[in-house]
């Protein structure tokens, strides 16, 4: 269990680093969205593959402009609880909300 928890923290940290290096202090710009999305998702996935574990990964990224509107996200999974897991990271700056979810499924 300890190993699982520290692996989750490590994943969290890596994703936050990936998001900050891509968006950092930028304000929301519609023209740059595609670039940011690809950047975040690609760097998260490459960080995960560097861990070298026998997992298949799904990385989902949601970028939302801060405008006062509400957002909810939920996920349900049909898998093996003992070997598979997920983690979600929420990041924000003055104009952007960014939610990254990572699902890892054991092969």
């Amino acid at each position, binding site marked *: 269990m300890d190993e699982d928890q520290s692996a989750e923290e490590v994943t969290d940290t890596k994703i936050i680093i990936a998001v900050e290096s891509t968006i950092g202090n930028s304000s*929301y710009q*519609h023209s740059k*969205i*595609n670039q940011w*999305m*690809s950047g975040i*998702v*690609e760097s998260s*996935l490459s960080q*995960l*593959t560097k861990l070298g574990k026998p997992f*298949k*990964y*799904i*990385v*989902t*990224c*949601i*970028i*939302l*402009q*801060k*405008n*006062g*509107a*509400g*957002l*909810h*996200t*939920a*996920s*349900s*999974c*049909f*898998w*093996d609880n003992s070997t*598979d897991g*997920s983690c979600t990271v929420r990041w924000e700056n003055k104009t952007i909300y960014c939610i990254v*979810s990572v*699902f890892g*499924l054991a*092969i």
Partner: protein
Amino acid sequence: FFGSDLEKFITSLNTYRMGPEPGCHFNASRTQQILQATLDRYLEGVCYSPDSCSQLCQMLADLVLSKLKDVNPPRYKLVCQVVVGQSGKQGISVASRSLMNPNTDNYTSAVFQNHSLFAVALVHGMYFE
């Protein structure tokens, strides 16, 4: 090779199966139809409200999963994600990328929008080797 060894042997007997049977792959188009129909049916005429929408979101995710379990081919794991948000004048972008085997694994998505809310549902099907 008796007693507990025999039990271990029986529980982990090899099926010698390398991939899903032909015709038993994750059916992306059928899943997409089920997703779209579920979203349309359950969100028609619903107004966004911050209190009820979090439960609505979770309920939709569980509902979609239970519908897909019926049509899910054997040895496939499912991951379903639902995003529900208020239709304001903001920009939103949802993206996903996965590390999977393109021969056996796939994903689908469906979008619903009305005057007060929008919903995006994402389902990935992964073959369990």
